[in-house]
């Protein structure tokens, strides 16, 4: 019997720039292969680890292994990697990004080369692996586990932030000092691996480029308060590629400048994502369902557009004191300020920084309902969702819904269940607006 092909997994985008992201994604893996061919160093890495600018300044080409897992899912090409990792003994409850990455490495080793048909030419063998403790434990342990298949050195850094009730003034210097030491350790390791010294001027340059890209991106999102919505969440999950995978590069700045112009034009001319916008939804959290992104269009078919999202929106721009003259220290400061930027607000209100951000979005973006995506194998972005929902319920009575699947593992997804839930959610929104 022939397998029936699933024809459509991706979402129809709202902006032209989001449609151009595919090229940026392809280029991540293409440049890694090219760098390899030219004898340059390439490194497995984890996004949002606060060390991106260092990697770029060291002229090491990054391979974001998590993104590769998402890419495989969007292409529905993940099963053989998941199954391979599971056959090697990794549990089905382990992060599915990690399972895809490990399964890929395992297959590449077994086959003696990149598995045929791997999306975007696959990931080349790295020269080093750079893990981090930012966000979750798999991002620290994954590359250590990958040592089973790859005989390359691994270096993982700690990325720390204080608890929300800490006395920030009292702990700040300690946190910044510790973070700086972590970065310095990474730099020494990379200098050893590349045989080159870090050029601090070059590091300042990558920081400047990266901050400029994030500033533009922030301005774009501020324009998205407009009604009708000029850019939906599914576009955000594409355009974030520039901010997360190209920080420190001119490409990211250019990309967001063009997107800024496009969104501004749409706002000024009242061009919405859908012609008849009835409900504005907040994507409250959880990694996107990469396997089924068209679900955003399914909401749109009922007049519901995802006006804004919390996922892949780690921080707003922060101001590092101008007295900081060393770029590594700047990174440590920035990391601390980013992590704690909503603490004060949280302490004054709900006590929870994530809830504060969500409440702020509900208010500014005129949100009618919140949808969370619980990903079974990503504890980092799933734990807390029910808690956030409960606290939010004290401040707002808008409907909230949690859809359950996984970010990439299709075995955890049920289309019938989702459609039933979405139908009921839309009816609930309609019932409220009919009042």
């Amino acid at each position: 019997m022939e397998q029936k092909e699933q024809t459509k997994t991706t979402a129809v985008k709202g902006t032209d720039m989001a449609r151009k992201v595919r090229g940026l994604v392809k280029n991540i893996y293409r440049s890694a292969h090219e760098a390899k061919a030219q004898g340059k160093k390439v490194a497995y890495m984890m996004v949002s680890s606060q060390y991106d600018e260092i990697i770029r300044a060291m002229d090491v080409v990054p391979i974001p292994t998590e993104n590769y897992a998402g890419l495989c899912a969007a292409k529905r090409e993940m099963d053989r990697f998941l199954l391979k990792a599971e056959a090697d003994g990794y549990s089905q409850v382990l992060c599915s990004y990690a399972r895809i990455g490990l399964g890929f490495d395992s297959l590449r080793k077994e086959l003696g080369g990149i598995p045929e048909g791997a999306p975007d030419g696959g990931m080349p063998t790295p020269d080093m692996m750079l893990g981090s403790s930012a966000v979750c434990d798999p991002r620290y342990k994954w590359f250590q586990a990958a040592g089973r298949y790859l005989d390359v050195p691994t270096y993982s850094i700690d990325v720390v932030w204080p608890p929300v009730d800490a006395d920030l003034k009292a702990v700040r210097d300690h946190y910044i000092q510790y973070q700086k030491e972590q970065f310095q350790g990474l730099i020494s390791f990379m200098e050893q691996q590349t045989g080159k010294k870090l050029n601090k001027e070059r590091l300042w340059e990558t920081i400047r480029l990266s901050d400029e890209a994030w500033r533009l991106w922030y301005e774009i999102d501020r324009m998205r308060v407009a009604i009708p919505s000029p850019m939906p969440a599914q576009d955000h999950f594409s355009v974030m590629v520039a901010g997360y995978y190209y920080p420190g590069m001119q490409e990211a700045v250019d990309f967001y400048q063009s997107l800024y112009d496009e969104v501004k034009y749409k706002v000024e001319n009242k061009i919405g994502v859908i012609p008849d916008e009835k409900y504005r939804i907040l994507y409250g959290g959880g990694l996107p369902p990469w396997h089924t992104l068209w679900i955003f269009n399914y909401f749109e078919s009922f007049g519901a557009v995802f006006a804004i999202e919390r996922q892949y929106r780690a921080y707003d721009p922060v101001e590092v004191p101008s007295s900081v003259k060393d770029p590594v220290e700047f990174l440590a400061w920035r990391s601390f300020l980013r992590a704690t930027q909503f603490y004060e607000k949280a302490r004054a209100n709900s006590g929870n920084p994530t809830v504060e951000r969500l409440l702020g979005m509900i208010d500014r973006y005129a949100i009618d309902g919140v949808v969370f995506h619980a990903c079974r194998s990503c504890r980092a972005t799933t734990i807390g969702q029910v808690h956030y929902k409960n606290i939010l319920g004290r401040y707002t009575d808008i409907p909230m819904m949690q859809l359950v699947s996984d970010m990439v593992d299709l075995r955890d997804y049920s289309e019938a269940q989702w459609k039933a839930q979405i139908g009921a959610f839309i009816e609930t929104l309609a019932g409220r607006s009919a009042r």
Partner: protein
Amino acid sequence: MPFAGIDIGSTMTKAIIVDHEERILASVIGPTGAEHRHLALKVIDEALQKASLAMEGLDFIVATGYGRISVPFADKQITEITCHARGIRALLPTVRIIIDIGGQDSKGIKLDNEGKVANFVMNDKCAAGTGRFLEVIAETLGLKLDRLGKISLTAEAYVQISNTCTVFAEHEVTSRLAEGASIPEIVAGLHEAIAGRVINMVRHLGMEKDVVVTGGGAMNIGLVRAIENKVGFPVLIPPEPLLTGALGAALAGHDFVRRGVTPDHGRRRERVTFFQ
């Protein structure tokens, strides 16, 4: 002015016809089992016959339940969440939380002061916490499904069934039997397990009085007691727990007519094909 509601669930098809004063003219609970689900047309015909009406005489037909999309003779489709809420609002207006335990899924619905849906939760695609779970285990124990409730009430204690996965629970039940546990104790344990799973889910909405239990689960007295133990107060049971969705659908049809809403498309007197 008569209105009909048809609720095609995973195991049963239910139909109700009401008049413009929302009095029930006829109700039919259709045959059980997947192989009968396409007989929805027969179920509505039977209800029409009971009410001495023809399909053309109905002012509005609303379909609900998992099979609602594929009802060719319905004027509109509405999800069972909204329909359950509408049905309960008419039957038991003080209710704030609905716990519906159906054949293949369970859900919790929170109603606001006007009886409209404020929020809801549905179980995931797992069979545990649903009627299907009990059905499978009843078979393992060689018992009839409708006897489980009474049997469990004769138990003085329950044995813990820790596996909420239907497949594993079946093994667990077999080994508990081998260890010497009595059947009533095991059945009581199963009710505990389901009630625990369902209540944990519904707690996300915030428990609030009154609570009603609907669906097939409401007809199992042992399960209802286990739920009451968990919520800490007595729950309400509607007179016909299987029919609240269909009733809500019929009433929603009346609401549509009152608001001047017209049907989505023409009615076709055809079989329901969705499940075949």
